[in-house]
């Protein structure tokens, strides 16, 4: 049996490992158009910001590791088309290759900014590690950086440029950074800290065109022109489904490939995983797209195991998330108040400010927790947090609480670790839940 995987990101690598595990005797071939596989693109901003010393540190395993493990990876090899009827793919320079099972992990692309000058050289999109290495060399001589769009990668890049000592401009039409994702009270300290780092926030400002002759030299906005040595375009992610749609594989309202809980697509013997698919959300059951690398890897494993003849299932997602923004860490699960308000999901808000360790212990920091509760069944609709420590763990906990449908009453009166250097007397999530209970 020959299993072909297209894409060398987290989903593709997960799929190849899953397929090998389920069908050790199968021939598993992975095609990627890039020079590397199995690295962490999410780490790129932190190398630019000098928190991580070298780009090589982002590569989880080198090519020899995959070779020794028996993985057949075809680097810099483009798959041009898929014929699901004859079960073959067209590989650039090689012609037709037959498959018995196919897994697509074709990832995502940046949304086209759709403004004049988008084709100018020098506009940088954070994605590929080799391009990031080249871009990083430009940063040594650059003085002014402009980041377009306040998406998570945009916030991370702006923070990285500030750490690097560049004059950093951040342009976004939203009222506050990450306005599509995070609530204003969560972003308030973040915004303040970004300004404190010297980042010029141009909120309520749209980018009208990129200015330059051949290469970008400025960004024209609705509030004037900003000269720039480097420009990072951090528009929203869109699923890369070009191959799939050309092959007649169905996509949904997000643009992502439609899959079931086994990651099977609408085509026989074709599975898909990662940022190219759409997955139902656990609260609304409506599909969403563009999750994290850990989601992509887990989905890839499910797709690979099933392609190898095994039986695995994936579940609707709660989407725990977290990131460093300015000098703070923000995170949450599922819906914030802004998104819940947008969709009209019934909710009650509970909010509390707590601390990360005993107040008398040196180095304690503030944690703000905001929980959204369904007034009817008293379970969580979502939550958001801002703090310095423990945000990731709390987001993971809230995601499990949602999955297990734990009532807010139980979170309000949960037991918690109390130890002065690592935990305060009162758990901030419990305080926020108690606040919500008072409104139910």
């Amino acid at each position: 049996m020959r299993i072909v995987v297209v894409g060398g990101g987290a989903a593709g690598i997960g799929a190849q490992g899953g397929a090998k595990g389920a069908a050790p005797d199968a021939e598993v071939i992975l095609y990627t158009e890039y020079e590397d596989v199995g690295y962490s693109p999410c780490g790129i901003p932190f190398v630019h910001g000098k928190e991580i010393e070298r780009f090589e540190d982002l590569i989880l395993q080198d090519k020899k590791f995959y070779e020794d493990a028996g993985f057949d990876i075809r680097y810099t090899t483009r798959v041009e088309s898929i014929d699901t009827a004859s079960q073959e793919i067209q590989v650039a320079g090689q012609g037709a290759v037959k498959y018995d099972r196919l897994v697509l992990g074709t990832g995502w692309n940046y949304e086209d900014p759709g403004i004049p000058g988008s084709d100018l050289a020098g506009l940088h999109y954070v994605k590929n590690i080799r391009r990031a290495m080249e871009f990083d060399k430009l940063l040594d001589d650059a003085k002014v950086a402009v980041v377009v769009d306040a998406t998570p990668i945009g916030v991370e890049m702006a923070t990285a440029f500030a750490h690097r000592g560049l004059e950093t401009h951040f342009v976004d039409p939203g009222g506050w950074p990450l306005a599509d994702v995070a609530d204003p009270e969560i972003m308030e300290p973040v915004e303040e800290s970004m300004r404190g780092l010297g980042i010029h926030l141009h909120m309520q400002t749209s980018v009208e065109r990129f200015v330059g002759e051949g290469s970008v030299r400025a960004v024209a906005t609705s509030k004037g022109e900003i000269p720039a040595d480097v420009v990072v375009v951090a528009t929203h992610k869109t699923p890369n489904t070009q191959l799939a749609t050309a092959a007649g594989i169905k996509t949904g309202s997000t643009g992502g490939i439609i899959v079931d809980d086994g990651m099977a697509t609408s085509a026989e013997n074709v599975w898909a995983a990662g940022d190219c698919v759409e997955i139902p959300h656990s609260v609304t059951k409506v599909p969403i797209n563009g999750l994290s690398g850990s989601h992509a890897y887990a989905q890839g494993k499910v797709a690979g195991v099933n392609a190898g003849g095994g039986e695995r299932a994936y579940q609707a997602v709660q989407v725990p998330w977290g990131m460093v923004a300015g000098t703070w860490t923000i995170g949450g699960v599922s819906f914030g108040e802004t998104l819940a308000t947008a969709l009209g999901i019934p909710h009650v808000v509970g909010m509390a400010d707590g601390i990360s360790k005993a107040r008398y212990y040196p180095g304690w920091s503030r944690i703000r927790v905001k929980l959204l509760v369904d007034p009817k069944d008293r379970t969580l609709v979502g939550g958001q947090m801002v703090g310095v420590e423990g945000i990731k763990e709390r987001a993971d906990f809230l995601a499990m609480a949602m999955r297990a449908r734990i009532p807010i009453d139980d979170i309000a009166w949960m037991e918690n670790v109390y130890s002065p250097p690592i935990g305060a007397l009162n758990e901030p999530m419990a305080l926020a839940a108690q606040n919500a209970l008072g409104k139910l």
Partner: protein
Amino acid sequence: MKFFRWLRQNAEHYLLEAAQVDMAKKHRAGSGPLQPRTPQAFFWRRVFVPIYRLLPWSVRRMIMRAMPGSHRRSWERRASN
């Protein structure tokens, strides 16, 4: 499917924009998002958003779930990844 993608993109954009305006009024003394005026935006802001907001949650949810997508396929099994 292109129609449903177009519908969802626009609906999400303008519902989020309206929610951000509300949130800005509540928490930030009105510094909401930039709202460029176009004929298309007029329809979504003045017609779609108010009508959507009048609908009860059960109806909104029913409409969202009626859209084609992954949620219409089998998602009943317990995770085992």
